[in-house]
């Protein structure tokens, strides 16, 4: 086996690098699709509402309702989809 070519990673100008953290990604997803209202709650409540909101999203998308930001949930949040909110408001 030849030594594998060292792949050079290049930063492409204008590349929309979605280097959002998983938490930021989850927060914006839950708000955008109506699982979590956009009101900012105090720290403690926001944790409850995020977990509760995650459970609602997992139920809507037919995922295991763990209330956790696990891999299956993150993958679902990265998939292309319709822009209509899941929770009518």
């Amino acid at each position: 086996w030849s030594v594998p070519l060292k792949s050079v990673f290049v930063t492409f100008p204008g590349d929309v690098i979605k280097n959002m953290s998983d938490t930021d990604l989850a927060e914006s997803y839950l708000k955008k699709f109506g699982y979590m209202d956009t009101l900012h709650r105090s720290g403690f409540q926001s944790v409850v509402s995020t977990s509760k909101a995650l459970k609602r999203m997992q139920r809507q998308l037919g995922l295991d309702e763990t209330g956790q930001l696990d891999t299956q949930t993150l993958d679902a949040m990265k998939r292309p989809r319709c822009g209509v909110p899941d929770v009518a408001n």
Partner: protein
Amino acid sequence: YKTFDGDLKWDHNDVTYRILNYSPDLDSSVIDDAFARAFKVWSDVTPLTFTRLFDGTADIMISFGKKNHGDPYPFDGKDGLLAHAYPPGEGLQGDAHFDDDEFWTLGKGPVVKTYYGNAEGAMCRFPFVFGGKTYTTCTSEGRADKLPWCATTDDYDKDGKYGFCPSELLFTIGGNSDGAKCVFPFVFLGDEYNSCTTEGRNDGYRWCATTSNFDQDKKYGFCPNRDTTTIGGNSEGEPCHFPFVFLGKEYDSCTSEGRGDGKLWCGTTSSYDDDKKWGFCPDQGYSLFLVAAHEFGHALGLDHSNIREALMYPMYSYVEDFSLHEDDIEGIQYLYGGKTDPKPTVPQPNTPTTTAIPDPDETDSTDEPEPEPEPEPTNHPTTTTSTPLDPTKDACNVIKFDTITVIGGDLYFFKDGHYWRKSGKGDSALKSPMLISERWPALPAVIDSAFEDVLTKRLYFFSGTKFWVYTGKNVLGPRSIEKLGLPDSVQKVEGALQRGQNKVLLFSAENFWRLDVKTQTIDKGYPKFIDVVFGGVPIDAHEVFQYEGHTFFCRDRFYWRMNSRRQVDRVGYVKYDLLKC
């Protein structure tokens, strides 16, 4: 399934839609067809019908846009949000928007319809072999004019079948130049451009001038995407440039080198190292048909479903042989009920797209209009030359007219001894039927065709092998059509087209003759075959007439409209587009 709060739905079943603009990713005929099939998904299981409008306001207004596209919900570039739609209602409600930063296909990679060549508009076949070399994209190899072309079979060397690929060197979309191709270089705001540009626009669409000076002529069009058009990146849809140099190495095709996400990209100039211009290569793309069927579900009143296999599930996934899930069917039938009969006795007025010629088997001439109740005796004085007849004899129930023609600029529809007149342009109301025998007493009940001589204003009427010529109230006839030089094999004249001052084309079966009205003789070199000169229209049209600068060929309830360049630019329903029912 879920419906929107308050079970929002349309309060009528004949829903209308209008396509406001097109994505440069697909040929407009492919987009028309994808939307028509997406509506059919829903009309197949409900009493709903979908009619396409070409102007004015429709219930469902369809458009493509990028990022901020005119409503409070901006799109987000490639991937992520693909489209959205609003529940039924007025204004923005019911509309559907598609993100044009996506790469729209039919779900399995670039859909490249060809133009000209010898493949009658067939799609490109990738990969194909040419000159012993394999090509996975359109190429200008072998051509001095640098026009990109492709084979429509997998081996050009063997089959010789090819067509030209969409490119700004061939045509443009929309704009104000009737599809004329780009002119390079062109001047815009004093600068010279040698390729399409997004300069001057904030919606990211690439455009060009169709004359050498936009500042002077203001003629422009949007550039169609080539099959190698890049997506995202920083080149605004410029096509890949092959070969291009990256990190000192030359690449002849897309690569994922330099990226950690495995996405294929290419340089859009000869050297990425020098110019840093790049974009993502076309991938499988998103099926416009599937996404549209989903969005139209919203526009009809369905919210998202949590059934993974349902069409109304929010996430996109490509399905080869699509069919509605029972969850979708239950949802839409909860709102509108089931289909009232297994097969529509009168085909749904889902105006066929410009490419989908209506299915001739659909024409069932059995559904004659119901016999009308005896009309109430009208005691008001008639104000017209003929006694208006039973006003409830509705032209909208006539499946096939005996003939349609233009007299004095108005459209006349003849059927069984009656005629209806539709004056002027636009939506003026149709006059109620009149008796032919009252205005033209010498004529029989069934008229096969008629025309008004441009110069003398004489009216020619044809029925069977006879014809009559009216000059005001005076009539000459009946006389045999052989007097005009038509052969005795002609059983009836089915259409007439004025050509210039004193020529008229007379149509019968699949032939047409040119009559010199002044000498009352048929010109030499005729008959000719209709499909040789008027490509794309049915050769068994039973009505042919000229109206508002277009030539109309009618068969049953449909018409094919041909523009001055002899291109069929619309197929529709006589009932909806001409009678304005």
